[in-house]
């Protein structure tokens, strides 16, 4: 058992705080996205798990639905109409005393008509004379409302607002933009690590140096070059290949650097054994280095994929805003402007954009951690 010291308690506490700070908003966002849009507007997500008491006003049906049984006239119905599920526990018939009567008992209106209200909202309104008014009477109820969740927000956001298409667009951007640099850089990093050629060190130094060049600085020049170049082949100015190439370019340096870092931790004697065994560099790479680098590939895949997924700037510059090209982050930004007051759309939209990073992180987290500490622990 590890000894409890101040630092260990402190670090555990810090971890706990991080976990809470991360989980609570995520979870809240998720719950909010599943709530009814009217409820969402007036109460916090944490109230949605408990049965809440609500005071509401309903109106009975009017005289056209009355029936005569014996010498009395009746109007029967349900206060809630279609929207059932609540439980009434008290009711009243005047605005001064809205919870005067126990559910199941009979109240008397000013005009001597009697009404009995049941727990599920059914009521029987009884009169000795014929009902004359077209409008029903107001009934005040205190009801318990059970937790209720709905997928309606998702239906609306994904299919009506076009976020579903944006989601697919983002995939179409992110997958190639992750795989292309990974493939290029794995070959490149191998060459930098295990092949001797003139200028290798200078090349490596320039890659490390290019890590510090801000993306924003090169964005517009690259777009211009791409457009001029694309025009030669008749490619549209803003299109998927453009953004793939842009992301690939921006990812090359960091991906190469991370992979180089991992590859140089592989034992050199193993590479020499492969050489003596008759493996060319190409064989060594495919049959020995790649199988052993899966953890590194996975962790770099995660980093690059999340970066592309969450990117807004490159997506705005290199892709159009029409529905077949707009990416998730750009779409969310657009929704924020046009539907800023509709929280149900924003929470749901935000959660949709989070699902993929969450899924990737949870399914590949062991590679993620292994990749980050690669080389520091003896295998």
């Amino acid at each position, binding site marked *: 058992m590890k000894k409890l010291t101040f630092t260990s308690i402190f670090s555990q506490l810090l971890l706990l705080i991080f976990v809470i700070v991360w989980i609570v908003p995520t979870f809240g966002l998720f719950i909010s996205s599943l709530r009814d849009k009217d409820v969402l507007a007036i109460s916090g997500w944490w109230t949605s798990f408990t049965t809440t008491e609500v005071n509401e006003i309903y109106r009975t049906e009017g005289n056209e639905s009355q029936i005569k049984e014996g010498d009395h006239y009746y109007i029967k119905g349900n206060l809630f109409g279609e929207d059932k599920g609540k439980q009434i526990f008290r009711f009243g018939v005047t605005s001064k005393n809205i919870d005067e009567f126990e559910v199941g008992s009979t109240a008397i209106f000013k005009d001597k008509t009697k009404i009995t209200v049941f727990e599920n909202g059914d009521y029987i309104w009884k009169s000795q004379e014929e009902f004359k008014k077209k409008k029903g009477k107001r009934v005040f109820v205190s009801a318990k409302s059970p937790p209720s969740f709905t997928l309606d927000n998702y239906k609306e956001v994904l299919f009506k607002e076009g976020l579903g298409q944006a989601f697919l667009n983002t995939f179409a951007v992110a997958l190639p933009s992750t795989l292309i640099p990974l493939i290029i850089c794995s070959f490149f990093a191998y060459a930098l690590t295990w092949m001797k050629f003139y200028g290798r060190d200078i090349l490596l130094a320039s890659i490390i140096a290019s890590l510090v060049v801000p993306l924003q600085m090169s964005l517009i020049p690259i777009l211009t070059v791409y457009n001029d170049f694309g025009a030669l082949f008749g490619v549209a100015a803003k299109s998927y290949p453009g953004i793939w190439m842009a992301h690939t370019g921006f990812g090359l340096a960091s991906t190469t650097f991370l992979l180089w870092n991992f590859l140089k931790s592989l*034992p050199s*004697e*193993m590479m*020499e*054994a*492969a*050489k*003596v*065994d*008759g*493996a060319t560099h190409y*064989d060594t790479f495919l*049959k*020995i280095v790649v*199988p*052993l680098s899966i953890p590194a590939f996975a962790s770099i895949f995660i980093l690059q994929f999340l970066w592309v997924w969450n990117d807004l700037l490159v997506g705005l510059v290199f892709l159009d805003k029409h529905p077949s090209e707009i990416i998730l982050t750009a779409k969310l930004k657009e929704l924020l402007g046009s539907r800023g007051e509709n929280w149900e759309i924003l929470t749901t939209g935000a959660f949709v954009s989070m699902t993929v990073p969450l899924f990737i992180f949870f399914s590949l987290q062991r590679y993620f951690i292994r990749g980050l500490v690669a080389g520091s622990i003896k*295998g």
Partner: protein
Amino acid sequence: MANLNLKNVKKTYDKTEVIHGVDLDINSGEFIVFVGPSGCGKSTLLRMIAGLEDITEGEISIGGEVVNKIIAAERGVAMVFQSYALYPHMTVFDNMSFALKQAKTPIDEIKSRVLEAAKILQIESLFERLPKQLSGGQRQRVAIGRAIVRNPKVFLFDEPLSNLDAALRVQTRIEIAKLHNQLTATMVYVTHDQVEAMTLADRIVVINEGIIEQVGTPIELYNSPKNQFVAEFIGSPKMNMVDIKDGHKLNLINLKVPSDATKIGIRPEHLSLSNDETCKLKGNVRHIEHLGEHLLCYINLEKNDEIVAKLGVNSKIKINENICLEWHQNHQHFFDSSGVSIG
């Protein structure tokens, strides 16, 4: 099986010469051990034979064919590395068959050759395991097996036992010796451990600072070292060196000292206690180590020099006692001022 010839082989790293022209002829089927202190260039020399290092100058030929420009895989050599260098993601069978698969050998032949090698090393039962599921000794066997499978002209071993514990090292050493007898292949073995060198080698090559100090059978090196370096390197504990002209109480009457000799060397196991009449060297006992089969006696000479004597367990000596030592004249070695052996 082939002979191996090195002709004036040199190696330079960035203008620093580390191998200064090595000439060596290794006969077919011979077991040669390169021995020397760390950093002497013995591993570099081996790697040059293997094709892992370029040859700056000179010629290496295997079976009469100059291999300077031939890549490692086509030289017909197989190498066993210090760290075993197994492929961690492949099973034992795949590790052993990798080279054959690279050479596009038919699958039936691969199976029979791997099985044959595995039988020699008794590792057939490990075929499906991964290297991480093997013990250090088993990994070393697989590494040797991987070399055998290729049926090379020359086997190269780069300190193959230094990662094993002491007991396993002795056992594996014996197995390598057996393997050599069984395969009758040419083997070049690099080590810094002189016990491994003495027990395994047909001929030992003592290397120091990039040059060969002496080549010879273990007994030749032990009995007649060419110079002070070889004399001190071979044998454990190392040979005692005593300055002659410095006034130690050497009884020179019983000694015939060559005129230009500055040092005399006597191995600890050749020293024995004597009476005053036959005394050749006097000293004071500083420390005694009981090793069961013998004593190691550390003796202070005048001028704070220390020598070691390996004496019988029944020797009645005490710490701080002044004793006399003698030796047979066949066991003495004289060296001149430049360290070269005389006589």
